[in-house]
């Protein structure tokens, strides 16, 4: 049976930490159990699994668990499953699952992202990085120039914004300050210490204009989002959240051949697929592995004009928990931990269900945008509680 909409039902998250010793599959199952409990579903009702980017043998810390492994480990009879990196970004695993349930391929799909990078750094003998020989594919255009991190690639977009539109460090700081303030109210956040503007302004540079506090840090955790079919909602006990629209567009699949990042065409496409507008949105959960990405997402999604992102967040009141557009209320990746995209979808659902406790935004939020990805990778979801 096909339907115009897919729904997020159960959500779950494991412990979030650094250098955890719990097995990454066990962390994944912790998050699965929480999501099943919340949805009132039994594992026997799960018939699909979707993940990003699948098990990556060369970088096990980056992705230690694949979709096929979870299917087998939990005895799931899957009528549909998928996992891979060649998709619009982390939340592409959720858009794939949404298409699967809308076309009748599955009824309840576990979507997950498990990260184990801090643990892998601490236990390299068990989770080795593959020995680097010569580089090929896309890496060959950046690595020989010691542009070895997405921090460096993202910094170049940020510098262009600084020079072209006048983005200041004080403006950019509002992403990290907002994240870290919100993280203080989230018991599961990775970084739960206050951050001041003075701390930010005196921090060491990583790659100009990005300083230490503009970057997320390696995290061990698993996050699960269950995507359910419209005709399977009578099987769940939680309030379903409807996926009103989705987008994942790109102009050049490259970190340096594109003039700007993929959040711009993706944001534009999202609003073509819905009658909602940015003015209807109660909260935004925007990818911020590096702070500047959230600024670009605000522009790409049309919350402000291109080039106005810095002035839009200036002073931080607009994006604060009690502001007109609360942003990254769980702490984002900078405060909440590098959950790698899935944290934003998880938190959007928490807020739309009014389950944010100390960090719950006021009013009766019904519409949220969550995103993942930076550079040429971008996924945006518009979520609605009917």
């Amino acid at each position, binding site marked *: 049976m096909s339907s115009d909409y897919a729904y997020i039902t159960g959500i779950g998250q494991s412990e979030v930490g650094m250098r955890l010793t719990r097995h990454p599959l066990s962390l994944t199952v912790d998050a699965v159990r929480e999501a099943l409990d919340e949805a009132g579903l039994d594992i026997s009702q799960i018939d699909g699994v979707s993940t990003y980017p699948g098990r990556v043998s060369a970088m096990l810390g980056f992705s230690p668990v694949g979709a096929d492994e979870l299917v087998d480990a939990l005895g799931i009879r899957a009528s549909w499953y998928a996992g891979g990196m060649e998709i619009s970004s982390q939340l592409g695993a959720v858009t794939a699952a949404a298409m699967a349930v809308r076309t009748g391929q599955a009824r309840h799909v576990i979507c997950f992202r498990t990260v184990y990078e801090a643990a892998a750094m601490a236990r390299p003998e068990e989770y080795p990085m593959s020995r*680097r*020989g*010569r*580089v*090929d594919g*896309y*890496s*060959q*255009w*950046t*690595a*020989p*120039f*010691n*542009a*070895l*991190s997405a*921090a*460096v690639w993202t*910094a*170049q*977009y*940020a*510098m*262009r914004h600084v*020079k*072209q539109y006048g983005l200041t460090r004080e403006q950019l700081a509002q992403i990290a300050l907002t994240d870290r303030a919100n993280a203080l109210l989230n018991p599961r956040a990775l970084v739960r210490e206050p951050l001041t503007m003075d701390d930010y302004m005196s921090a*060491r*540079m*990583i*790659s*100009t*204009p*990005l300083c230490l506090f503009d970057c997320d840090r390696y995290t061990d955790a698993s996050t699960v989002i269950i995507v359910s079919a419209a005709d399977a909602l009578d099987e769940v006990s939680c309030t379903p959240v409807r996926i009103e629209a989705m987008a994942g567009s790109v102009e050049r699949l*490259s*970190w*340096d*051949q594109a003039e700007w990042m993929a959040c711009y065409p993706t944001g534009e496409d999202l609003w073509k697929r819905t009658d909602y507008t940015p003015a209807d949105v109660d909260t935004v959960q925007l990818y911020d592995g590096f702070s500047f990405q959230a600024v670009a997402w605000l522009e790409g999604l049309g919350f402000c004009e291109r080039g106005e992102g810095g002035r839009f967040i200036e002073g931080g009141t607009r994006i604060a928990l009690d502001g007109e557009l609360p942003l990254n209320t769980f702490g984002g990746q900078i405060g909440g931990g590098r959950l790698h995209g899935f944290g934003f979808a998880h938190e959007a659902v928490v807020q739309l269900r009014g389950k944010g406790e100390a960090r719950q935004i006021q009013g009766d939020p019904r519409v949220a945008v969550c995103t993942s990805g930076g550079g040429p990778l971008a996924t945006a979801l518009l979520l609605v509680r009917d």
Partner: protein
Amino acid sequence: MAAPRPLPRLDSDNTAFWTGGKDNELRIMRCRDCAAFIHPPRPVCRNCLSDNVAPEVVAGTGVVDTFTVNHQKWHPAMEVPFVVARVAIDGAPGVYLTTNIVGCAVDDVDIGDRVRVMFEQQDDVYLPMFEKIS
């Protein structure tokens, strides 16, 4: 001595680009049918889908489109700070190279600076770096 850089694995698509420095040439793939430049180099034109593509020598000058000063040591032997830049290549519209700007203080680089290629050889690879045109 600077730590060795990660080097590209040479193949039929990229050898012209990575070895052009042996002849002091910056070579960018170009379509012989529609004249579009193609980077990264591939055996098909992304503009008109023609197979009639071949490396072409360009002037070797360009403009700093954007840049960053990298301060983080991504591995212990890395010497910092250094400039990573994206250079728009003269005569090859739409082609940008990620590169390093060398031969000047890191604070002396800005968007819009005119730069010229110079090659750094490591093994069989000639890395196109750029220096400012004073």
